[in-house]
């Protein structure tokens, strides 16, 4: 057998990811890439690897690999309990994976996505400059399947420089996400309804987007946790109006006609026909990517919500970034 990692089991979803393929949106191809970019980058740094080597993004654990050859690996992101031949190993700590040994990731107690990086990187064929699987367009390598052997590249010249990174695991409680205004904030009847509510992450969330619903929504008119509440209402002039299709961004908070927001994640579509009312600030997108179904989410404006501006009235957003 060739040198590589034989996949014995994958859990709910395991995909190869790197930093994605920026620059192709005009031809309908999104960036894709690791959903939690910070956790992915940390894995590469811990291994002393050049940035951009492909790793495995493992959703809710369940990945089991057998080593053909000996490797150095590390797990970051959601703290899936890892074991080599049944012996537990540390999180965010590079570890030696001997030839023939079996690495297994269990279900993380909190968080959604773990990153398993290998010195040398997952050496699959790049497509448009990236080894990422785009689950929306189908571009890039296929979803990782049991039975396949993942080829591993040549390690970089440096090696691990740290024994362990003292990073906090993704939280399990209510997650607060900072918002900046989106282009269509004025489509909401009450922009404050977005931040007044406590939202619940839907089972239908995926790499395309974190879908929210209203169970447990609280706030004016919703005095406490209860049944599924109403979605966000549109402004009167926008009811039953179709938004002409327009480009959307990572972290965009799109409100479809049912009123329940979707936060766009790595495999988001390039364009959309529903209003994007806000955008999650960049550093919180990684935290959104770790929210699991059933977890609660709140939004908070980190700059003053502004209506759309005409040219000449451009101040107040970039200058007041936190």
């Amino acid at each position, binding site marked *: 057998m060739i040198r590589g990692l034989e996949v014995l089991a994958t859990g709910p979803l395991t995909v190869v990811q790197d930093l994605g393929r920026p620059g192709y949106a005009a031809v309908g191809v999104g960036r894709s890439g690791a959903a939690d970019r910070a956790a992915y980058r940390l894995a590469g740094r811990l291994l002393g690897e050049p940035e951009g080597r492909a790793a495995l993004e493992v959703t809710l654990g369940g990945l089991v690999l057998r080593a053909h050859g000996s490797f150095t690996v590390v797990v970051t992101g959601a703290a899936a309990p890892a074991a080599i031949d049944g012996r537990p190993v540390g999180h965010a700590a590079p570890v030696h994976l001997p030839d023939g040994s079996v690495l297994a990731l269990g279900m993380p107690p909190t968080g959604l996505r773990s990153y398993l990086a290998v010195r040398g990187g997952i050496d699959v064929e790049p497509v448009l400059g990236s080894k990422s699987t785009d689950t929306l367009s189908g571009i890039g390598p296929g979803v990782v399947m049991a039975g396949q052997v993942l080829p591993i590249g040549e390690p970089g010249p440096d090696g691990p420089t740290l024994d362990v990174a003292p990073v906090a695991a993704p939280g399990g409680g209510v997650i607060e996400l900072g918002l900046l205004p989106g282009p269509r904030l004025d489509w909401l009847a009450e922009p404050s309804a977005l931040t007044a509510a406590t939202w619940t992450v839907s089972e239908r969330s995926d790499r395309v987007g974190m879908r929210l619903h209203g169970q447990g929504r609280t706030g004016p008119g919703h005095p406490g946790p209860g049944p599924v509440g109403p979605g966000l209402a549109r402004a009167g002039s926008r009811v039953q109006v179709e938004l002409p299709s327009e480009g959307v*961004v990572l972290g965009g908070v799109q409100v479809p006609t049912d009123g329940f927001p979707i936060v766009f994640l790595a495999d988001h579509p390039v364009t959309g026909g529903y209003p994007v009312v806000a955008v999650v600030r960049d550093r919180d997108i990684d935290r959104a990517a770790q929210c699991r179904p059933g977890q609660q989410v709140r939004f908070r404006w980190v700059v003053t919500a502004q209506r*759309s501006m005409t040219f000449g009235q451009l101040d107040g957003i970039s200058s007041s970034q936190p």
Partner: protein
Amino acid sequence: MPSGPDADSAAAATPEPAVGGPTHGERAGPRLLPCGESAVLIEVTDTAAAIDLARRIEVLRSHPASARPLVEDIVAGQRTVLVTAPGAAVLSDLRRAVTELVWAPMVSGDSRAAWPGEQALVEIPVGYAGPDLDVVAAHTGLTRDEVVAAHTGTDWVVGFTGFAPGFGYLVGGDPRLVVPRRAEPRPRVAAGSVALAGPYSGIYPTESPGGWQIIGHTGAVLWDLHRDPPALLRPGLRVRFVDAGGPS
């Protein structure tokens, strides 16, 4: 093929090419809309203006005023242009540069002469034997031959993209060919299908679901990952359909 395995898992994703209406009575003129910390969305009057602005923003990819790249992606929509920066640090520079371009005289209007097509032209041979050719004929009051003559007799321009990799919304065609989308989208439309909906024509680059009226088929390869660039169509390119006689 990239037919969108999750296409219907996301209301976020448009499950078929969108057919949007015209502007709805808002004040005309470009508006710069906020779009998070590393992008701007410019709203213009119509698709022609969006194509024109998107093409002019391309010059920022090699912007001399900044050593740092300003632009990562430029996405023309039906009446918007989204410009994303590679990071929040250059957003104010990008916004300033975009503002200057927007203030430059803009092409506008909906007459064919105003479509800002570039000189480059691609000819697409089509076998006009699509399953919806009779529906289109009935709706437009034309004969099948007249539909074909209308579709081939006027050059189209690639407007905006977004439904699927390599799909371009073609604009500027014969105004008699405006037809509604099918009431029931087809779960499977073959790659190369040439279709009409609303004021647009389009060619399905890969097999996918779709709700447009299919009038023909082409053997042209719209999307090829082993080609650089992989998409045959790019915004601004002129497209001329040619009757290849019989199924192509």
